[in-house]
């Protein structure tokens, strides 16, 4: 194709080999010098990578960096308000323990879990993860985290808080806060007193609903299973059942599930006290704008609601279901610290100290005071500084009716199976009777596919 160039090339090649006036007795020397250079290079490379190995595996490795400082990293998915508090705690901890460094990183939403699993495949995952309890199931299945019982005395936690991360009898996370549960918020300008039963709630809602002016009595994230579960519980069911050995079974195809779905669908179609369509942002927006009298939302919104509504804001536990006379049962969990399964021995002591610090009396009281969440330890819960805290008592009352959110992977399959079906039922595409069958089958398929 390029005759000229090729000719030139061949010339140059010949030139090169011709140019080097290589008497036979010099050649071996040069070649072995080159070989030696190669070997030296290899050794150099080894030294370089050797050094990197030390730095790279600092998270799991055996290294103690300069001055005997131990570094532990903590990953979370918190919002900036909460991470500020955590950073303050970390500063206090490291001041008291100058030989320990705690490096904290935030990953938004799902990224935390994805990131941790991916990093773990290369041994690069953080020592500690601060996150919700459902992480426990996934990470335990993958054997990425370990039981915390050797790190902290689990008897000091309230039983419910520890229950939500118990898998096969072992507590897999250190409870730091308790809650993450739903409660009833109402606007005191529109509703004078919180309804005690669902019948009252519907009655109150009806009085405050006026579709023409866009006013609603009750708003909540009606297509999301997390908001459905309290009704399921009140009808006497639960998405999972766990036997004595800790094996979970998905139970979506139940009478209670059917009733709960029918009940929520009726709120929209028959009673018409909730909007036709309303997602999380819509519910929150309507309530904050004063266009909704009541809303069901989580303890994580308390601060924001209080800041924007002030004295108008009322809080109460979810009401009692009139049909069964049982209270609606929100799922309760909290924020936990999980410990990497592959943690280096040298770091165990530091981790122990850190989780001990996070669950100390003072910090747990601050959980209530500064994070606005329920403390996870019994001693903090009974401390006068907490019992006297007006903002936290409604949360505790609301959590009393709740049940721990199962941490098993089965729960994740259940969520994923419930969501699309619930959407279809709410839009009237299929009946609850048919829906629950699909839910169950779908959940089982999802579970099976996780194993393939």
């Amino acid at each position, binding site marked *: 194709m390029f005759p000229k160039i090729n000719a030139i090339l061949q010339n140059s090649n010949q030139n090169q080999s011709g140019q080097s006036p290589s008497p036979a007795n010099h*050649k071996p020397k040069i070649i072995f010098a080159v070989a030696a250079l190669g070997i030296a290079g290899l050794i150099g490379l080894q030294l370089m990578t050797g050094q990197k190995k030390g730095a790279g595996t600092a998270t799991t490795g055996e290294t103690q960096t300069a001055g005997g400082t131990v570094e532990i990293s903590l990953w979370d998915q918190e919002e900036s308000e909460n991470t500020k508090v955590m950073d303050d705690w970390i500063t206090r901890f490291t001041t008291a323990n100058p030989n320990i460094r705690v490096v904290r990183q935030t990953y938004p939403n799902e990224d935390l879990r994805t990131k941790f699993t991916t990093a773990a495949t290369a041994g690069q995952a953080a020592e500690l993860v601060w996150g919700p309890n459902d992480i426990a199931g996934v990470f335990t299945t993958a054997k990425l985290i370990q039981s915390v019982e050797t790190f902290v005395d689990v008897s000091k936690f309230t039983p419910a808080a520890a229950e939500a991360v118990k898998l096969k009898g072992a507590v897999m996370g250190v409870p730091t806060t308790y809650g993450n549960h739903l409660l009833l918020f109402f606007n005191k300008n529109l509703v004078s007193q919180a309804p005690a039963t669902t019948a009252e709630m519907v009655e109150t809602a009806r009085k405050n609903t006026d579709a023409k002016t866009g006013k609603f009595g009750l708003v909540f994230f009606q297509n999301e299973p997390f908001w459905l579960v309290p009704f399921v519980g009140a009808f006497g069911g639960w998405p999972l059942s766990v036997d004595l050995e800790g094996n979970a079974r998905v139970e979506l195809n139940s009478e209670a599930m059917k009733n709960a779905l029918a009940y929520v669908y009726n709120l929209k179609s028959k009673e018409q006290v909730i909007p036709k*369509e309303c997602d999380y942002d819509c519910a929150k927006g309507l309530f904050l704008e004063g266009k909704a009298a009541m809303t069901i939302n989580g303890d994580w919104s308390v601060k924001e609601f209080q800041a924007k509504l002030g004295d108008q804001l009322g809080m109460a536990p979810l009401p009692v279901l009139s049909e069964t006379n049982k209270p609606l049962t929100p799922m309760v969990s909290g924020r936990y610290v999980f410990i990497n399964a592959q943690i280096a021995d040298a770091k165990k002591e530091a981790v122990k100290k850190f989780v001990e610090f996070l669950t100390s009396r003072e910090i747990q009281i601050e959980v209530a005071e500064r994070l606005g969440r329920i403390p996870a330890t019994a001693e903090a819960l009974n401390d006068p500084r907490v019992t006297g805290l007006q903002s936290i008592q409604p949360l505790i009352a609301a959590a009393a009716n709740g049940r721990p959110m199962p941490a098993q992977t089965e729960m994740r399959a259940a969520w994923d199976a419930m969501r699309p079906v619930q959407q279809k039922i709410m839009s009237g595409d299929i009946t609850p009777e048919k829906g629950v069958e699909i839910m169950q089958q779908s959940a089982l*398929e999802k579970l099976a596919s996780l194993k393939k």
Partner: protein
Amino acid sequence: MMSVSLLPAILEIIRLLLLVALAVSAVVGFLWVNYKYWRSDYYLPAAALVSLVAGAELVLVFEAALVLSIVLGALPFVAALIFKYLIRGRWMVPFLFAAPATAGVTLLFLYPLAFEVYLSFHRLNLETLGDWIRTGSIQFVGFENFLEVLKLGSETKESFWLVTARTFAWTGINLVFHVAFGLILALFLNQKIRGAGIYRTILMLPWAIPQLIAVLAWRGEFHSAYGYVNHLIQLMNDVFSFSVGETRIAPFEWVGFKPQEWWTDPHALFASICIVNIWLGIPFMMVVSLSALQSISKSYYEAASLDGASAWQRFRNITLPLIKPVMVPSMILGMIWTFNNVNVVYLMTAQRGGSEGADILVSDLYKQAFVYNRYSFSAAYAIVIFLILLVLTAVWMKSSKMTEDPNRR
């Protein structure tokens, strides 16, 4: 003011450049040394020595597995054999020039490909992940993962075939709209009109804006209550409706043109993703078409006008054939990019409130691997997708070449 740390970053970049220079010179140097000495009598013994030392080093110092060490250690010697008996000093310049890029591509394309093939025949998932990390070994399962990929769906599970069909629909819809709108806009812009430059600049905005920002902004606009899209639809329905007595008649609503639950209803979600991606992709096709149009000599049209050809005839018989050589490769490229476009679909579906039922193959693949941790399954899945695309492109390239103007050859 948050402080910005500049120095460590710049130092690292310097280190990086040194590292790259080192890697490049290592690769080039290796080749060069071989080219220089392949004739020498001591060449093979020296290479064998390097191989032995490297292998021993790997075993003793790096504590690598024995098989791996033998394979890696043998590389210099194998290379030497190739240089001595196959290459024989030829092709030095092109090899030296191509070497750095080849090394990079091998490291970041070939190795991952091989790794994925390995994974696809084994079982790596959530349950086996921890053991794999600790022991490095996973169970061999043959074609099980491939069969699982190709399995039919059920009422509760979307099958691979459904997702494939959706992906083809997605690629087709996008490509048709990209090309159609791109070409129409280009035809308009190619006329003598005032402000063509300004129009072109504005119309290129969707391409210029960082994709992440554009997609997330669009996603916000598709919010059922706070987004502009539903608001606009409502507005149009209000304008084009009238009341007869008590009954409100809105003709648009009869054909389903009404506010949608874009985030949760799978059909609406898929439609919204298509709209966003069409919006994003038009400028590229517009620009390609425009420059193709501008390269057509005016004399063709003048001649055609003299012959009394209508506008459509001119378009059909002059414009289309002449822009085809540029358009077809761009369309093939556009097809591949659309088919493999995980970003837009992922950003539109994977967040809170996101819904299933609108995924295309690649976004489904991403979710299977990283949300459900089905690594082996997704490796098999990826290979199947890759093969589909390969066949598709090959067929298209063949057929478009066949219809090409034979005079161009």
